[in-house]
């Protein structure tokens, strides 16, 4: 046991770990927002609700079908991603030619509908979800205790983020995607089905949110409003990072999670607001965001 800046190392590393966990969720969610924004030019306000749906999918699969965490990790993103595809086909497809503001309004309305429906059925209190057996317990690293599940969340989130980055920046499909972001008409002229790509991109972004939800279920309680407060923080993360770069979104997510964790140690009163304060500072110094192209 030793101290750093007068703070016991256990507390410091404990909060850093919590920060990294939060950062994992910020990174996954802002990545999904960035991918969707790139293709659809829509800020997906429903993202928080879809994250919540992912957590509920895991809960319901376990409760009513006995399907465990590992299967839920695959099934929930696919199912929720599919509902995303339905939403895109039913609603968002009609907004293509309009000001992006309308996309924000429509997805905000959808988020209210989804949250309201879940609250009607499950109330506002949280439902517990057990950590899977294989990840119970933890290990002592000497300077801190590391619960296995938390380590898993960080590793999985990093892996998924980097895989997404690789798929978009380094593969053929990704190059189509980036090309269609720049100039959809030209890409269509080359015989690529851009509308289908847009739909699938939305489904994929929603799937990422649902995956984050499944990962969050054992850490936070599963509750209908778990997404709505989180999404506002993620918006701030997106403003700070700028949506121009995939890697930027991932980096900003993790970095802000860590900063938030450190704030909890040194000045806990500000831990709720520190990300918004950083956003204000970034806007004053570098309005386009840290990794953003100029507006």
């Amino acid at each position, binding site marked *: 046991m030793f101290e750093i800046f007068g703070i016991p190392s256990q507390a410091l590393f404990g909060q850093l770990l919590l920060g990294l966990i939060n950062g994992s969720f910020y990174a996954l969610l802002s990545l999904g927002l960035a991918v969707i924004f790139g293709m659809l030019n829509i800020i997906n306000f429903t993202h928080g609700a879809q994250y919540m749906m992912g957590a509920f999918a895991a809960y319901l699969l376990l409760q009513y079908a006995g399907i465990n965490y590992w299967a839920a990790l695959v099934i929930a993103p696919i199912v929720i991603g599919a509902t995303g595809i339905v939403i895109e086909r039913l609603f968002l497809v009609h907004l293509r030619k309009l000001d992006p503001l309308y996309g924000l309004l429509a997805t905000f*309305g959808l988020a209210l509908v989804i*949250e309201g429906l879940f609250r009607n059925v499950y109330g506002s209190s949280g439902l517990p979800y057990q950590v899977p057996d294989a990840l119970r317990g933890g290990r002592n690293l000497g300077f801190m205790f590391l619960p296995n599940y938390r380590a898993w969340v960080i590793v999985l989130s990093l892996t998924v983020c980097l895989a997404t980055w690789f798929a978009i920046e380094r593969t053929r499909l990704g190059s189509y995607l980036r090309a269609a972001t720049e100039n959809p008409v030209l890409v269509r002229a080359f015989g690529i089905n851009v509308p289908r790509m847009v739909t699938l991109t939305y489904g994929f972004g929603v799937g990422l949110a649902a995956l984050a939800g499944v990962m969050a279920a054992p850490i936070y309680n599963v509750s209908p409003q778990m997404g709505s407060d989180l999404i506002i923080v993620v918006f701030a993360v997106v403003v700070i990072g700028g949506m121009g770069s995939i890697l930027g979104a991932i980096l900003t997510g993790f970095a802000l999670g860590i900063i938030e964790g450190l704030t909890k140690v040194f000045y806990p009163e500000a831990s709720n607001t520190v990300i918004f304060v950083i956003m204000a500072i970034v806007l004053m110094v570098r309005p386009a965001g840290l990794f953003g192209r100029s507006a």
Partner: protein
Amino acid sequence: MEERVLFQPALTRHRETDLSLGVAFLVMVALLVAAPFVVYPVFLMNALCFSLFACAFNLLIGYVGLASFGHALFFGWASYVTAYAAKTWGFPPELAIIAGAAIAALLGAVAGGLAIRRQGIYFAMITLALAQMMYFFALQAKFTGGEDGIQGVPRGRLFGVFDLANEMTMYLFVLVVVLAGFLLIYRVINSPFGEVLKAIRENEPRTVSLGYHTERYKLVAFVLSATLAGLAGSLKALVFQLASLTDVHWAMSGDVLLMTLLGGLGTIFGPVVGAFVVIAMQNYLAPFGQWVLVIQGAIFVVCVLAFRRGMVGELARLLRVRL
């Protein structure tokens, strides 16, 4: 930035539209004066406060094309300051309201100064994030009373003469203030300043190239909108004798957006109609609990997909007048 196709093009002013506006205004005033004899005054005052809030919000989204997702910040904080000034400092109502509106103006200058650095959806996200930050401040600060809010705010005597504890006196006071705010906004929209705002909405780069400092215009419009939203919040604190976290929560920003959208973005009477419809809906649907959220969300989606002109916007199109 893409061409905006969302707003109905502004019609040129001529005598007929002035006439239709005048008639509509007189009808509105007559209805509002007669209403408290038929409808519960507190409900009316609530709807009137939200009408002013929505009109202030519409000044920004409808006439400058800036979509703020954080207007609860000004509404809620002004309501806290008014409640605190009236209760703890013993301010008379007129000074308490001015204090609230002044705080809203100050917050508007800071938030607006930051938010106008980015456009479009970023603007929306920034205003939402700043409002959320101030929500947490309100949650943690001592003077706001946290979860309890500030309760039992005295209405006091207006100018030391009129006793606002009387519902009818309070109603008339709210009505006068709201109508004054409404007329001020109308005046601003139709002033040379307002024309520049509309030019920014239609095509900001072109407005810049014509030599206007669009940032300054946007900031002034933002501060004005924030101040009037604050005025509405201050009034509401006196009407309900309460300031609470509900008023600073993001859901409130969503409510005012819904009112404006449903009534008609960029119409003069739209926000008033929208506010009355949404408040009535919340009132009568309250027993259904969380279904209100679902219904409001559904109205949002329907408005965006099929009804972008809003109620007043559609009516104006049918009658071929400006409303």
